[in-house]
Structures are given as C-alpha cells and as structure tokens.
C-alpha cells in the first residue's frame, strides 16, 4: 500500500512516497515556486510522473497511491484529528479562510487538483494545530475582554503540532514524560508536553507571537504597534511586512540569515543576534519547565534540527539545565512531518478499506 504525502507551503510543495510502514520514504522531492510560476496542476503532474518513473524503475506497474496525506497548518480546533476529505470537510475548511488566508484557499485548490490527478484516491488531512486542541484554558486565553475574545475567536494556538507530536513520540520511547519540544523552523516554536499533552506553547493567535525567527519579530509590546501606527502612520500591511519579513535575525543583523548560518558556523558579527535568540529560547525553556515542574528531555526538530546541536550545547551549560537532578536528555529529529502525515493517512485508508469490505 503506497501513501503519497504532500506538505504545501507558500514557497514549495514537498512530497514523499511511503510503501508499507511509514518509516522511510521510498521517494521524495520538492517543487519550488509552488505559489509562483509553478501552478498547482503542473506541480501534481510532476509528482505523478515522478511516481510513474519510480514504478518503472522497480519494473512495477504504476499504480495510484492508496491514500494521499496532506499537512494543513491551521484548523485543528475545527478538526482535532485527521480527517478524510468529503464535501462537508471542504465546506468547513472554507469557513476557516479568514483565519489563515494564505493557506486555506491554496489547500482547497490542492484538494481539487488531487481529485483531478488521482481520482478516487482518498485524501486525508492532518492538522498541525490539532495537537493543541486541548491546550489548557489558562494557556490559550488572552487577558482580554472575554466577549470580544469569544466573538472574534481571539485565542492562542500552537502551529508546529506535527513536529511536537513526533518529538513527544521520540522522547516517550526513552521514558520521558515531561518534554520540551523546540521546532527549529524559520519561525521557531517551543512547546512543553506533559504526558503527551501540550501545556505551554510560545505561539499565539498567529505564528508571530513567541520566539523571534529568521525574519519574524516574536513577542512585542502591543504599545509598540500603536506607536508605529500613530507616529509613523504605518498601516496594517506595513506592520505585517515589518514584523514578518524584516525582523528577527534579518532585523538584528541586516542580513538574510538562516538558523544554520547562525548556529552551525558562528561568525563574530552575528554574536549579538545569536545571544538574543539563544536567550529567548532559554527563557522559553524556563517557562516550559515552570509549566511542567521540570523536564526530562529536550527534542529539537525542524529543518534546522542539526544546527540546533550548537544551541543545545549552550543550553546544557545554563544553570536551569545544570541544576536538574536527573540530566535532561537531548534528541534531534530532522523530518518527522511526512512520517506522521503518512501514518495517519495509512490508518484512515485502512479503516475505510475495512469499512468498504464489510
């Protein structure tokens, strides 16, 4: 049974093909400029051809996948678990558009094109934010007017749920029950997971809150936003560009810098930026420990997981980790998302096959 996984983002469409147990993909690839010059239908055609070529190389007949698993970055409160796509799911997804306007319309187009290119193949959606569906109320509430927050859905989420879920699985195998999961992506996120349940996360109503990223600002005083609007007449779009594209490492150093470059090959001119990022991550670790009463393991995942080794070495030397009676274990996960998406798609596909057989 073959599972095709798709991980779309505004910049690229990542795909992987798993056979049998979703441990290692037998084929994978990245389609660049997926929201730019490469329209969705051409991207899927490319994937289809790659799958056919792989089948020919194995001297096997090209067969459509048994299921397509798709990662969705938002919607976990509406869909707290993986879901097979049908008309009702599509309708409910459409209602989420205002909360994730860059992602949901593109997802709907992707679903349409998957149906066109792989007719009859079940599509299974796995939601990043689902991991945080039962985030404690004390954690997801903002201290705002309760009616305003309820009517407009102003609450905090976590956004890298699939990474955190994989991090939990990895640490739990070693017996950890209190896990700090740091997803080191361009917009990093840290979560505290106790007994498999998230109890603290750095992100907010959007991924912007929390840790500074490669181009994102992280936590700010809301007064600063008002000041920029009042004094410099910045409108919402300019503020968004400033906070999402021109801040973080870029703002601190003036250079378009990745976490790889920051941690793996430290240059002296980036020392201050490195200190800021490390310090903020350390603070978030402290918050996570406070939420869980300590920590058994730290798992660093995401595309910069390996660069995170340098960060981990620094964290281990800090007092908050030194003073733990039992040393905190550190683990590194590189690409867990596809495996989780494939695993969940496989489960749903098998269940639906069983139902069909019955």
């Amino acid at each position, binding site marked *: 049974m073959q599972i095709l996984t798709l991980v779309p*983002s*505004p*910049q*690229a469409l990542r795909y992987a093909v798993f056979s049998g147990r979703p441990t290692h993909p037998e084929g994978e690839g990245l389609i660049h*400029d997926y*929201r*730019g*010059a490469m329209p969705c239908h051409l991207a899927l055609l490319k994937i289809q051809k790659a799958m056919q070529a792989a089948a020919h190389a194995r001297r096997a007949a090209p067969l459509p996948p048994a299921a397509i698993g798709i990662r969705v*970055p938002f919607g976990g409160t509406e869909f707290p678990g993986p879901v097979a796509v049908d008309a009702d799911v599509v309708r409910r997804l459409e209602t989420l*558009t*205002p909360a*994730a*306007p*860059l*992602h*949901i*319309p*593109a997802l709907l*187009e992707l679903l349409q094109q998957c149906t066109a290119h792989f007719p009859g193949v079940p599509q299974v959606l796995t939601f*990043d934010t689902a991991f945080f569906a039962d985030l404690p109320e004390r954690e997801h509430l903002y201290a705002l007017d309760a009616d305003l927050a309820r009517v407009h859905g102003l609450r905090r989420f976590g*956004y*890298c749920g699939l990474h955190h879920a994989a991090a939990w699985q990895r640490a739990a195998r070693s017996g950890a029950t209190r896990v700090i999961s740091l997803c080191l*992506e*361009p*917009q990093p*996120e840290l979560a505290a997971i106790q007994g498999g349940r998230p109890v603290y996360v750095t992100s*907010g*109503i*959007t*991924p*912007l*809150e929390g840790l500074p*990223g*490669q*181009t*994102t600002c992280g936590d700010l005083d809301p007064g600063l936003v008002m000041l920029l609007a009042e004094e410099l*007449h*910045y*409108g*919402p*779009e*300019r503020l*968004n*560009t400033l*906070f*999402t*594209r021109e801040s973080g490492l870029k703002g601190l150093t003036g250079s378009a810098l990745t976490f790889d470059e920051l941690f793996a090959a430290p240059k002296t001119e980036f020392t201050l930026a490195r200190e800021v990022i490390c310090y903020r991550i350390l603070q978030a670790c402290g918050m996570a420990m406070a939420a869980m009463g300590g920590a058994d393991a730290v798992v660093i995942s995401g595309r910069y997981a390996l660069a995170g080794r340098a960060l981990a070495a620094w964290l281990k030397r800090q007092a908050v980790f030194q003073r733990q009676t039992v040393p905190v274990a550190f683990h590194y996960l590189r690409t867990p998302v596809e495996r989780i998406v494939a695993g969940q798609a496989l489960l749903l596909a098998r269940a639906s096959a069983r139902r069909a057989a019955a």
Partner: protein
Amino acid sequence: MYAILQSRLASLKADAAEFAQELVGVESLSLHEEQVAELVEQKMRALGFHQVVRDDYGNVVGALLGRQATATLALVTHLDTVAAAKDDPHPCRVEDGRLYGLGAADCKGGIAAQLYAAYLLKYSLLPLDGNLVVAATVAEENGLGLGVRGLLERTLPEMGLKPDHIILGEPTGLGLYYGHDGWMEMDIEVEGLNPFQVDDIARNIATDLGEAMGSPEAGGENFVLSQHARRQHGGVATASMRVARRLRQHGDEVGMLTQVTHEARQSARNSGAVEVAVQVRQDAQRLYTGRTAVARRVVSAWNTDPFDPLMTRARQALAAAGCASQPGKWQLGRLGMGTAGSVLVNEFKVPTIGYGPGCEAQAHERGEFVELEKIYTAIYGTAAIAHSLIGIPVCGWTADEI
C-alpha cells in the same frame, strides 16, 4: 503575501503585455469602441471573472465576488481614445520596453493593468472579503462620461455592486492622484438686425473675454475662444462663437455661466439693439450600442480629500508593497481633457483616486507610449491597494513555512 503576488506576477507579465498591445492595436475612437469592448469582454471571461456584463451603454464590467460583500471596490478605465493625428509616425509597436500607439497611455495600458491586477489577486489565491469590479467604459473622451454615468446610475446597482471606492486607471505615472481642475465650453450668440454691428460686438466680446482671462496661468491652458461665425436668417444676423474656460476647485458651472454672460453683456452694453445669450454647449451622442444621450460640455473640478481613508489606505498599501506612492493631481495641460472622477465624485459622491501606468504628458499626444515596466508595477500596486481595501487581511502570517 507580497512575495506571492510578485512571484505570480512574474508569470503573468508576458500575457499582460500581449493584451495591452492587442488593445492598442484595435482602433477605438470615442463612440466606436465595439471591437475593443469585445476584446476586453473575452479576456475577462478567459481569466475567470465571476460575472462579466456588457451593458446597454457598451461598457464592459467584470466582477470578482468577495466572501461577505462587505464593500465594493471598482477599478475604472475607459475604452475610447481621441483621434490620432493623421501623420502620426508611431503605429502600434513595442520598442525598448515601451508600448507605442494611440491610447497606449490614455488609457489602454491602464485597462490591462487593472484587469490583470484583479486577476493577479485571484490567481494568487488571496481571498477577498468585498467585491472587486473592473469596468472599462465608453464615451469618456468625447462623451464626457456618458458611459461611466450609465455604469453608476444603472449597471452596477442592477448587479448589486454599487462601489464604495473607485480607482481610475488613467495616466498618473504611478502617482496617487486625487483630483483635477475642470472646464466648460459655452456657446455665445450675438443677435441683431445690423450685421456689421453684430460682428463688431462679437469681436469686442472676444477681446474683452481674452483680456479678462489674462495670460495663461501656470498649470496649463485656461481659456480657449473660437473665431466667431455669422449667419443671416430672416433679416436677423447672428454671430456665434465658442469659449472654453477652466473651472478651478471652488468654481461651479452656474457661477462660470453667470460670469461669462455678464462679461459678454458688458462688452455689448452701449451697442443698442443686440441680444447676447450664453449657454453651456451640449450635443447629442450616439453610443456604439445605438443608445443616444446628450453630452453637456462641462467637466467639474473634483477633489478627493488627500486624507480620505481611501488615499490613506492606498498609500499604506503601496508602502507595504515596496512601491512608491507620490500623491498629486492631474494638471490637464489643455482644456477638453479630464477624467471620470468629475462624475464619480461630484455626482455620485464616491471617493475616487487615480493610479495608472501611463504618463499624463503622453495623453492625446503624437507618438503616445506607455512603459511596459510601469504596466507591471501598476498591476502589482493596484492589486496591493485592492487587497488592503477589500481583501481578507493577512496578519501575522508570512510566505515562509511555519
């Protein structure tokens, strides 16, 4: 969001340039716009506009419907051009990044920019809360806004798309324009029994009106007077002449008519039995659809408050998108020029601004051209402004993966 817009725009540039060239390649003098209207309608259908309508006036209207229809933004240009000079040595062609041809700057580059701006938003999958209308109107140059008046009076209300804001794609050289002076044409008639006396008085009026206007002010032509012509009928001699005068920001049509009537009668005050009458010039126009209407030769000055939320949001959006946004007003170097803003702001009270790729100095000129790069920037800039007004805000999300 802007990275997505720019990336998608890159793959649309060739199509947009080709479409602009097609538009310029089709002659569309005022009241003869049918062929170019057909072209625009076909393109709107091909690009998947949700509604496409050709109304009774011949205007072409395409709409992208928003999720909640909270507000409607209309992007408005015109299909017609003024007549070319017969010896114009610049036929339609692309050379050194410029699209040459009649109407390239005024306003076919603007049509292409506005149509592709709407499509860019759709193609980039950026959802809209409000409705986006793209309208290319007829009889703007010669018909003094007959097409746009019909659009606002009937077509858009019937479609349920009355606009809350309008952006004109007229030539602004990518500046944000918010108004211009107006002008009006008047017919002056001097009637009397003595033809020589009638001629004398007509000449006096011409001289006195000319002196009253003085030398041309900075900012272009402010007074044009035709030679008088005399006819004789049933023993009555009638001299007629035509005068055009600039209407400044606070000058109105009635005031100008009263003033010119007073000045003309003053010139004739000691001349005995002659009658002097002044009236606004008007003539019947037959649109290409067969519909007829009377066009009054008045373009009122108009002005959108430079601090109107429309201007503010447009400026903010362009700044966020990394585009320049120089505010300004059309200079209208010659009387007889103008934009639909006069009708839209003064008659329909819709806040209106201009943002287009053409250059005002090119409008109605021999060898007219528009720079293709400016068309591309106008597509991107117009899409950014439109999204700021009716798009679902993208707050806290980036084009990066999370």
